[in-house]
């Protein structure tokens, strides 16, 4: 066979950050096949050294604009673990609500603005404004709602202001919560319409499966986002987040400024599909109904493209949980809290599920509460290795396709993971070489 393929996608579009895809096939032999991450590394672990415990979340929130709330939550949890600070039920509920707002915001942005154009065979959401105006307006409405939820609870859409170590600096008003609740109730119907649109074009996803290890948090009381232990499809006993280093096993590779990870297999996957595979039985009835409609089975789903369906399902879950959190808040007399913080030395880990998967922050403080060491493990990093492994199974299977179609499928594969590359280098491009 004399098949030659040369694909060279530099700075893949419609992903957050910079990544390249390089495929070099000569005489039917794959000579080079790489998922590369050239994003400029930013060295956050060095930026926080020497800063006070109260400043850490402000700094590490800036690791990522899209998941700044997730970084804030992981950061606050790590600091609170290090300093031995307990938070009130009120603060925990407000943080969870904020995190659901971000999940909704990020999943809508990703599925609708970045993935749907592929399924509609257009280069961006912009042509859809003219061809599918109702769908675009539905999407902007949901996206606006998620952003405004983050505004009301966090004080700002991106880089939340109010969430601090041990407390919130300002609380939502009764009227704001009532209005949010009303709009979230309406959003359930909008999400149902969106799920139908997604289903109508989801035949456009390539047919590709590869079973891997799925890794996420899991929590007895609910589908895990804010709290939980680490679990995977390959282990019987859950692991404490404090032991994260033995789980993620980060390593440096020449093709990437972002680190890679592996655990019980050559690679693992984190994110919406991993969460769904591990915790689907804890979803709400409506989100389970949407999962079934989108073809997700209540077990292990092994096509990476199904990550996008799992994101739609999680949007529904996020809306429903947000409503129940708001109902709880409306039943309380909310009060401003002043945390009793005793500055001391200590080390702590904070783990949360952010839109792209499990996130860990690990800080060490000296006697004055000044950070002396930090480590942030970013979900997109954890997926890079799995993307590479998917490439290695997919390209031989699809070599008979025209080069253009193969390239398109690889690009869609990377987008399915919703990589957040700025985050991961604290990175995305496609190169195909013949």
């Amino acid at each position: 066979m004399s098949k030659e393929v040369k694909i060279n996608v530099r700075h893949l579009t419609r992903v957050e950050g910079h990544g390249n895809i390089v495929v070099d096939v000569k005489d039917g032999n794959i000579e080079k096949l790489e998922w590369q991450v050239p994003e400029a590394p930013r060295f956050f672990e060095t930026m926080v050294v020497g800063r006070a415990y109260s400043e850490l979340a402000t700094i590490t929130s800036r690791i990522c604009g899209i998941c700044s709330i997730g970084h804030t939550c992981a950061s606050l949890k790590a600091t609170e673990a290090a300093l031995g600070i307990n938070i009130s039920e009120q603060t925990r509920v407000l943080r969870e609500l904020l995190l659901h707002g971000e999940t909704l915001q990020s999943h809508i942005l990703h599925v609708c603005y970045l993935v749907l154009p592929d399924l509609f065979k257009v280069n961006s959401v912009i042509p859809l404004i003219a061809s599918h105006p109702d769908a675009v307006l539905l999407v902007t409405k949901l996206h606006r709602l998620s952003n405004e939820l983050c505004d009301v609870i966090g004080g700002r859409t991106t880089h939340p202001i109010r969430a601090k170590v041990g407390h919130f600096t300002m609380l939502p008003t009764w009227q704001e919560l009532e209005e949010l609740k009303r709009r979230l109730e309406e959003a359930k119907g909008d999400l149902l319409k969106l799920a139908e649109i997604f289903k109508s074009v989801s035949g456009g996803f390539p047919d590709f499966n590869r079973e891997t290890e799925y890794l996420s948090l899991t929590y007895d009381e609910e589908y895990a986002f804010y709290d939980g232990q680490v679990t995977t499809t390959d282990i019987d006993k859950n692991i404490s987040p404090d032991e994260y280093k033995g789980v993620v096993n980060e390593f440096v590779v020449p093709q990437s400024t972002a680190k890679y990870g592996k655990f019980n297999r050559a690679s693992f996957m984190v994110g919406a599909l991993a969460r769904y595979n591990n915790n689907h039985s804890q979803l709400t009835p409506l989100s389970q109904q949407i999962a079934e409609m989108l073809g997700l089975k209540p077990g292990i789903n092994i096509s990476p493209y199904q990550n996008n369906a799992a994101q739609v399902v999680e949007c529904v879950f996020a809306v429903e949980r947000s409503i129940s959190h708001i109902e709880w808040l409306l039943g309380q007399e909310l009060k401003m809290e002043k945390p009793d913080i005793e500055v001391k030395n200590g080390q702590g880990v904070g783990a949360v599920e952010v839109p792209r998967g499990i996130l860990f922050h690990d800080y060490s403080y000296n006697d004055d509460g000044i950070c002396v060491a930090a480590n942030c493990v970013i979900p997109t990093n954890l997926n890079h290795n799995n993307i590479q492994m998917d490439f290695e199974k997919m390209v031989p299977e699809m070599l008979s396709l025209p080069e253009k179609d193969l390239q398109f499928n690889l690009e869609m594969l990377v987008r399915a993971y919703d990589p957040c590359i700025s985050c991961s280098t604290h990175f995305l491009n496609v190169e195909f070489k013949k």
Partner: protein
Amino acid sequence: MSDKPKVAFFDFACCEGCQLQVANLEEDIIKLLDLVDLVEFREVMTGSTSETYDIAFIEGSITRKSDEKRLKDIRERSKLLVAYGQCAVNGGINRLKNIWHSMDDVKKCVYGDDSYMPHLDTYPTKGVDEVVKVDLYIPGCPINRDEFLRMVKELSLGKIPRLPNHPVCVECKLKENICLFDKGVICLGPLARAGCGAICPSNGSPCEACRGTVDNPNKNAMHEILDKYNYTVEEIKRTINLFGVNPEVKK
């Protein structure tokens, strides 16, 4: 061909939170597309051009030689170059890295024994204007959406937009907030450039000067405030470099 200005967006080392603010304009961005012709925006659209741009928006800080080459190429092809977001304006939060004396130590801290690998190279963070000429700045971490919208409208009308040059305290007073100094919290509002609507103090959190300072900050007034509330200059110096600002606040 359209006679609307050709606009492109580019990003360097940053969190991409500022382009997210552009995406977050929601329905307004649809209207904005009536005013400008969006020709390149990697995060939201496939397709790139090697043509010239009327306006290039640059987000992010410059941390490697290879970035300089890309940035200079964009500059050569752009009539007007806008640095938007604090990372582009002065390096922003990424400038905290520069406090380390050696970039080798910075690399070792993150990549350990692998830090020698050439693709992990980095140099002290620069703002965009340390590499190329910048025609307009839109500060903030993140940018303020309304300010961005105002500036794009003004640019499309051929006007050069101006930034507010009064301190955050002015906007904070207009909002009738209780001064955070009175609540025992140290705040950079007296020095910081307004235009954010005093968003942090209005949410009960001190201003961190994420938009930089006004052109000629009233240092004497800042000293008076610090004296009155028993704070030292050192205490504000600690915070003011969070977003890359480091004015000499001497008596």
